[in-house]
């Protein structure tokens, strides 16, 4: 009897510590809130920047929604119409593209710095979990959104990524070996990437993912606001500044400046100019495929290993990382910040090298093996 009571009691206590609703008062959330000032304080702004870019995505996304047509015969033409004929259409579309890359960049920096600062430590575990969910949702946004313009690189890159899911079938026994193909066809909606795929990716990108994102974001932001900014470094910071108005002011200043920079970039630099033009021609199922098909840059850290290493190695790595990601608050509960920083640097180095030099590494491997 007392065992059961204590387990229930422990569960309640666990959650009430992680979601301290009693702290939802003006005093603790606004007037008395303080932010530590130390050499890693710059990292406290990263989450806010990610939110800024998400807001830009939402607004520009709604703009694009007014003209985009999600059918295989009209999708590419509707995007061209927006780009060349709608007033400011080019700007809106380019903002959407630039902002998506910026959001993912800020997201990765935010995650790595939060990891290095041990911000996931008790009682902030739920913040980390909701953040990991947001990470997965953001990458899903990127994946589903990329298909929508229905040009060569969009469709072919999606095909390549989905085909690699099918590869897993080779490592599964008997009837299970057809399961990956079955999953792939559920994602695609039909035997190959076509109208069914476009329709469901559109539904996901515009409705389902935003709803899920808002849910996770709500939890994440509530958690951050209730707990306040984490300590960040081992020694208690000597200085701390008031959240309101100083920290929030600097936060908004940064947002204003960053938005100006992104706006100027979007006005003057078409994102597509970094790629060869044949990749952006309308997808032709009966025609040829241009060179250089690959997923977006933020998937390189997954894509190139898939091309270079044996499939099972990558799958194993991904599996461990995904589970590990959610279990971080418990795996690294007793790890010092020093060790966490080292791990963070290693992860950052891997991501940077794979993203910038992935193509080079792939070519070296291809050259030496063929």
């Amino acid at each position, binding site marked *: 009897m007392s065992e059961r009571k204590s387990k229930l009691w422990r569960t309640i206590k666990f959650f009430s510590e992680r979601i301290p609703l009693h702290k939802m008062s003006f005093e603790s959330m606004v007037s008395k809130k303080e932010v530590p000032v130390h050499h890693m304080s710059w990292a406290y702004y990263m989450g806010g920047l990610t939110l800024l870019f998400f807001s830009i995505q939402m607004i520009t996304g709604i703009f694009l929604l007014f003209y985009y047509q999600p059918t295989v015969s*009209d999708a590419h*033409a509707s995007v061209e119409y927006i780009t060349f004929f709608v007033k400011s259409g080019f700007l809106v579309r380019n903002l959407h593209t630039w902002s998506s890359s910026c959001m993912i960049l800020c997201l990765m920096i935010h995650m790595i710095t939060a990891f290095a600062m041990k911000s996931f430590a008790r009682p902030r575990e739920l913040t980390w979990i909701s953040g990991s969910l947001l990470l997965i949702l953001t990458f899903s946004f990127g994946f589903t959104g990329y298909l929508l313009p229905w040009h060569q690189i969009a469709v072919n890159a999606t095909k390549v990524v989905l085909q690699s899911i099918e590869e897993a079938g080779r490592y599964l026994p008997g009837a299970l070996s057809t399961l990956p193909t079955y999953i792939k066809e559920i994602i695609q909606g039909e035997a190959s990437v076509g109208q069914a795929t476009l329709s469901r990716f559109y539904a996901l990108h515009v409705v389902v993912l935003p709803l899920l994102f808002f849910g996770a974001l709500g939890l994440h932001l509530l958690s951050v606001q209730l707990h306040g900014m984490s300590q960040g470094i081992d020694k208690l910071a000597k200085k701390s500044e008031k959240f309101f108005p100083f920290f929030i002011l600097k936060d908004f200043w940064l947002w204003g400046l960053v938005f100006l920079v992104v706006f100027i970039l979007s006005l003057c630099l078409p994102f597509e100019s970094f790629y060869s033009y044949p990749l952006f021609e309308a997808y032709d199922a009966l025609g040829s495929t241009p*060179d250089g098909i690959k997923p977006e840059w933020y998937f390189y850290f997954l894509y190139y290993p898939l091309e270079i290493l044996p499939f099972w190695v990558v799958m194993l790595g991904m599996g461990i990382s995904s589970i590990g990601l959610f279990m971080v608050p418990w795996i690294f509960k007793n790890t010092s910040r020093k060790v966490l920083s080292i791990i963070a640097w290693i992860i950052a180095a891997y991501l940077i090298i794979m993203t910038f030099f992935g193509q080079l590494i792939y070519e070296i491997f291809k050259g030496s093996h063929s």
Partner: protein
Amino acid sequence: MFDLFLFIGLPYAAMMSLVAGSIVRYKSNAFSYSSLSTQFLENRWLAWASLPFHFGMFVILSGHLLAFAFPNLWSILVSAPAFLMVVETLGMMAAGLCLVALMILLVRRFVDVKLQAVTSHLDVVVLLILLFQVSSGLGVAINHRWGASWAPGALGPYLHGIFLLNPDVSYLKDMPPLIKLHIVLAWVLILFFPFTRLVHALSLPFLYFTRAPQKVVWTSSPSHVRFEKTVAMDTERRLFLKASLGTGVAVALLSLGALDKFFRYFLKQDLTNAEEAHILSQKLQRLKQSAEERELELERMNKDMIFVAALSSLSQTKGKYFIDYQMRPALAFRDQDGFPIVLSAKCTHLGCTVGQDVDGQGRVLCPCHISYFDIKTGEPSLGSPAKDPLPHLGWALKDEQGSLLLSQDSDGRREGSADSARLERSLLFIVKRFS
């Protein structure tokens, strides 16, 4: 004659009165430069009337001044429809505010006993002139539209003429009476200016923004609170003003430049005829393509065999293109024995359509990345980027009556036989069950 008096004599008299009168008044009785405010006697109605009146008057006078001082610039600015819309809206709103406010200001003087005691005839005259001026201005705006266009062109030169001592009444000769009234009343107001409370307009509080906060010591609160409270109040006001100024300028700049572009995003886009025609023809082309593709798909769904060509029309050196059961491009040749060679034309490297010309070594070329494929075996030659062979397709030969003569599946197993004469007249089909 009367025009000369009204538009040359009166203005010069008014300006002399303004300048001389203001200076003389200041020298003889500086403390009379007062707005004679009745704030201590009646506060509530004054707040509701005086502030909107001053705000509206400021907007109206700025607009008038800008237009008359820089008529050319004003004409250029006003040619932008968005700007004109903003100016007209602001102007009407300001005039409306002034009208209502002036009426309240006037009425309160007669209704409140305390105010009746201090109201002089000149106060009423000033208020009435202002009221008539604003009403006539509104009347001009409504009855003689597009003032933003005709006013700079007519009144600008007239005023310039007055100030450059080279007056020219011809600009105003043919103006409608309402406009003339508006102009005359303006000069009258200027004439009366130094004799009325309007002189308070000459003392503008520019120094307020830059001087140090005043220390006003209230005798009613405990002394240790006095200093803090008053300085804080004053700094708070400054902060609010600076904040409003900053965000106000930002919003104004954004509305002028960026927001109207985003607003136009949602409007019907104005395309030239050529652009519309181009978009429409592209749409038509895509629809035709879709229709053709659907027809082909339907054919492949319904039919077990699809006609490719008459065997006699096939060549050893030039393949015939057709679409196979997987909706891929494919080629049909004839070998030296007279039998058909049917293979997929989708290059196994990156999917380009392979060329139809057979070279001396019995190969076709994929031009995209230069891969050669032997048409008999389908194998890519050494050094080609393509590594997998082009798959051969199953085919069947039927005679003109439709009876099956010969068939071959995709692995090369043949069934049936026919003599060369019948073969010559046969028709080539691709077969669903072999695909």
